[in-house]
């Protein structure tokens, strides 16, 4: 997961690795070789000294002269690394001995039957067993103990040097990484900061001020030209949206004027039509009038929707709130739709309290119920529709549930946007209903959400705050009275 590690850390790690790894390797090889050499030198020199002393001791042993043997051993006194030495005769009996300062614990006589010298490193000392031979005749053996303190000292010095070297290398690496960071990371971070600022303040006029001509400079230049392009596109988009909203506003207003007069004229025709004698003709005429009226109403609805959207877009969406009963509105809307409900044979099930009073805009609230119910009828596939109202102290909720085609989870957020529908084919309309509904609910300070599974229907849940506390208190007062 190296992507989550900062460049600074990577630089430090790489520099340390790059410097330490070869140093370690070389030091390890050199150190191991040197220590091995020192060790082997010490073993060799101990063996050499032992053989010289054994030479001196040979005559002393051959002619049974202890003082001469002790003289021979005194040679060792010159160097403190010789801890002790003992000359044994062929029977393993002590013949002469030397020890540096404190008498060492007498070591048992070594195996004396060898004619070859043995040198071994045991713990903190080197042990040499050197047979004493002269003219092919063996007279005894010399046991010599040499301290390995010089070797240990050498190793310690070496380790300390190593430690200091590593500390030095780490300091050097950090300095190097710091310098590299100044060169690279800091400039990248400044670039990232500019990007963050732009996202935060939505100000695309900011530019990165890195003028370098290296890779980071190129990145900054590309970044700046991308920002310029972004600003240009943003401006274009804004202009397009403005034009569209203006068109919507003008178009809907312009459409309303002839529509109103058309509606009045149709109504006038229905009211003032002369009676027709032939019942078949009369029936045909009545059906034509009905159709014309329905189409005019539908047209009016569409134009109103466009007008609403245009108002929403320019932010002119005033509410005229008063104390209203949501349950009453629900009953009214079902009444409006009774003909359509009767025609389609859909069952509408109600789960509502007697009253659900809040401070809302009654016309807008009616629009919400109309939109949700007409959606449920449209997409409900003829299955029963449930409408429920629940009431809390602070809020009222309205749930409209159908058992129709449902909405794919990917589309659930999209359906509340302008001109968006989950399914575009086989169903008419501009795709504005849910957008307007959401805007009305938001204007009341409420929320709207959808729960749906494709093929199992959808439930739209509107939660509205009940508005002024005075209203709630008035309601309570009325209840108690």
């Amino acid at each position: 997961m190296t992507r989550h590690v900062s460049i600074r850390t990577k630089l430090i790690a790489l520099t340390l690795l790059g410097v330490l790894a070869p140093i370690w390797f070389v030091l390890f090889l050199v150190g191991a070789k040197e220590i091995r050499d020192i060790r082997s030198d010490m073993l060799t020199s101990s063996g050499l000294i032992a053989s010289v002393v054994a030479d001196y001791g040979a005559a002393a042993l051959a002619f049974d002269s202890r003082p001469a043997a002790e003289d021979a051993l005194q040679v060792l006194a010159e160097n403190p690394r010789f801890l002790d030495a003992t000359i044994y005769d062929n029977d393993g009996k002590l013949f002469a001995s030397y020890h540096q300062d404190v008498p060492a614990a007498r070591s048992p006589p070594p195996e004396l039957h060898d004619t070859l010298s043995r040198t071994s490193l045991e713990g903190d000392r080197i042990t040499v067993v050197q047979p004493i031979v002269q003219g092919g005749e063996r007279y005894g053996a010399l046991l010599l103990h040499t301290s390995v303190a010089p070797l240990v000292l050498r190793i310690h010095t070496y380790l300390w040097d190593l430690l200091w070297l590593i500390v030095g290398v780490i300091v050097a690496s950090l300095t190097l990484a710091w310098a590299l960071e100044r060169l690279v990371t800091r400039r990248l971070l400044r670039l990232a900061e500019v990007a963050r600022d732009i996202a935060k303040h939505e100000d695309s006029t900011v530019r990165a001020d890195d003028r370098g001509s290296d890779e980071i400079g190129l990145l900054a230049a590309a970044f700046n030209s991308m920002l310029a392009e972004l600003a240009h596109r943003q401006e274009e988009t804004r202009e397009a949206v403005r034009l569209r909203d203006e068109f919507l506003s003008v178009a809907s207003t312009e459409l309303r004027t002839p529509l109103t007069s058309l509606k009045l004229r149709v109504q006038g025709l229905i009211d003032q039509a002369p009676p027709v004698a032939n019942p078949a003709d009369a029936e045909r005429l009545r059906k034509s009038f009905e159709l014309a009226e329905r189409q005019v109403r539908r047209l009016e609805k569409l134009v109103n929707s466009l007008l609403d959207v245009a108002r929403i877009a320019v932010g002119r969406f005033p509410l005229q709130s008063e104390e209203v009963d949501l349950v009453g509105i629900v009953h009214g809307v079902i009444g409006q739709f009774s003909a359509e409900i009767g025609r389609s044979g859909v069952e509408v099930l109600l789960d509502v309290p007697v009253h659900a009073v809040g401070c809302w805009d009654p016309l807008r609230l009616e629009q919400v119920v109309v939109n949700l119910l007409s959606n449920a009828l449209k997409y409900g596939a003829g299955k029963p529709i449930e409408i429920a109202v629940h009431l809390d102290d602070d809020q009222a909720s309205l749930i409209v549930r159908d058992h129709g085609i449902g909405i794919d989870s990917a589309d659930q957020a999209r359906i509340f946007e302008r001109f968006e529908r989950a399914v575009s084919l086989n169903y008419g309309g501009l795709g504005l209903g849910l957008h307007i509904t959401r805007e009305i609910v938001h204007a009341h300070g409420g929320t709207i959400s959808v729960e749906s599974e494709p093929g199992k229907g959808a439930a739209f849940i509107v939660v509205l705050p009940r508005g002024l506390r005075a209203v709630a208190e008035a309601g309570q007062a009325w209840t108690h009275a």
Partner: protein
Amino acid sequence: MDGAAGIVAMRAAARLGVAAAAFAVALPATPHAFADELEYPVKAEFIERFTHFIEWPASAFEGPDAPFVLCVVGETPMAQYLQRLAEHRRIKSRQVELRALKPNADLSACHLLFIAADARPYLKQILARVEGRPIVTVADSEGFARAGVLINLLLDPEGRVRFEISPHGARRCALTLNAQLLKLARLSPSTESGR
């Protein structure tokens, strides 16, 4: 230091091999008697040991298989021990040939010449004849070293066998002596420089 002398004696006896071992069984038990009885075997052992510290030139031998010639001039109690040495031991990896010679005999074939006390009248003449040759002269008589015998065996006050070396004799023979041997010896006639 009686014990030390005893140790030397015992080691010397051990060196003499099977015959010496048989001889050791017959030894008296007291240390002093032990030392007295062992004087000659120890001296014989010393003579054998001297050869380890002395180098003879290859030209001193007639061939690679030629024996080491050990000559004795005069009568000495050591003769029997030297005889055993000649029978059981090898010197310089060679067989040992023991020759008992008259003082006026030809000494040129000898490698080591033991001059017994009773050869004192012929000493000068013998030494003159071995001069410049690779022949080690050994004796165990007072004053012989002073006269020029290379190695003279003696007993110290504690009854231990010691030896003196004549630097004059060392210069006159065509041999190399190990420095350690010189270091151990009492040098004669000058003051003592070793023990």
